[in-house]
């Protein structure tokens, strides 16, 4: 009787160990995205020069080419067009990932890790995303 109990206990412990060590799918999806990238030093200088007006990015706000948005991100920073523009996308392209729930941290077609490189808390550009990229800030 005692032997049987010990065997059952050992099996239960094994199952418990396996469950604890198994990595959930959610974690894998999220981890690939939240990569803390070092912001190159010259980006801080560039951001400061934009703010001070040393680098002229125009005064007209807007998303159209020739206005501040593209002047900063495309002209000055040289971000690739393909970071934001892809050849074909649905209306909901910002968050959609086939077979992946947005609740599982799908980054969307526009990978915001690019945005958060500068727009995170304490980053060189205007802070938009607080604690972006901080591990533990994710859902379980």
């Amino acid at each position, binding site marked *: 009787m005692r032997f049987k109990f010990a065997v059952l206990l050992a099996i239960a412990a094994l199952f418990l160990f396996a469950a604890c060590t198994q990595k959930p799918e959610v974690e894998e999806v*999220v981890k690939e*995205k*939240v990569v803390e990238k070092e912001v190159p030093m010259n980006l801080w200088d560039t951001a400061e020069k934009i703010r001070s007006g040393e680098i002229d990015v125009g005064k007209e*706000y*807007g*998303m159209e080419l020739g206005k501040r*948005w593209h002047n900063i991100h495309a002209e000055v920073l040289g971000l690739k067009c393909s970071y934001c523009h892809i050849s074909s996308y649905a209306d*909901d*392209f*910002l*968050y*959609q990932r*086939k*077979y*992946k*729930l*947005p*609740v599982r*941290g799908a980054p*969307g077609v526009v990978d*915001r890790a690019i*945005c*958060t490189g500068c*727009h995170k*808390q304490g980053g060189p550009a*205007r*802070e*938009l*995303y*607080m*604690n*972006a*990229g*901080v591990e533990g*800030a*994710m*859902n*379980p």
Partner: protein
Amino acid sequence: MVRYGLVIDLAKCIGCRSCVAACKVENMVQPGNYWNFVLEYEQGKYPNVRRIFVPMNCQHCENPPCVKACPAKAISKNEYGVVLIDYNKCKGYRYCIAACPYGVIHFIDKEKTLYPNGEKTPYEALPAEARHPLHRKKPGIAEKCTLCWHRIEKALKEGKKPGSDYDSSPACVPVCPAGARYFGDLDDPNSEVSKLIASRRAIQLKKEYGTRPQVYYLV
């Protein structure tokens, strides 16, 4: 401190889009734009497959990137935690649309009507003065879910508790035939939403951006 929010039970949502239709009608959202929509996902491999519906609307973030991104300072978060766009201040720069990681802000490029011939419905033909300020939309501005602030505001003025009945809840909540949507004060530990969040596995979308959404999903 009151902080209104939504809880959406994904296990109950059947993807019927009643919330989408109710929102469209209530807020006079023009064709092509959606303040509320439903994403669909397939999970698993044949024969063990299932479809999941994820209703999406403005997450009314505690730390909203759209507010910070707007050069015109047209977006603000009110004392009840609702993020609202001031249409008089909005210049249509669309920075908010780019900054929002949820893709729930839409731009009104031109006026469209529900009648296919371009004629306005009686509802659409209402003059701006006859509408709530949040329904005085015009081409060249951004729009998004207001958590039916006009209803909440009216309930508060009448001394009613927002969410206590049909008219004092966001339009998407009482119309849900599956009862998958809940509205209430997230800061009140005795509210239904708080209890659900505490008792079930409730998650926020894209929490890793530090936006701290006020819409929770029960999974």
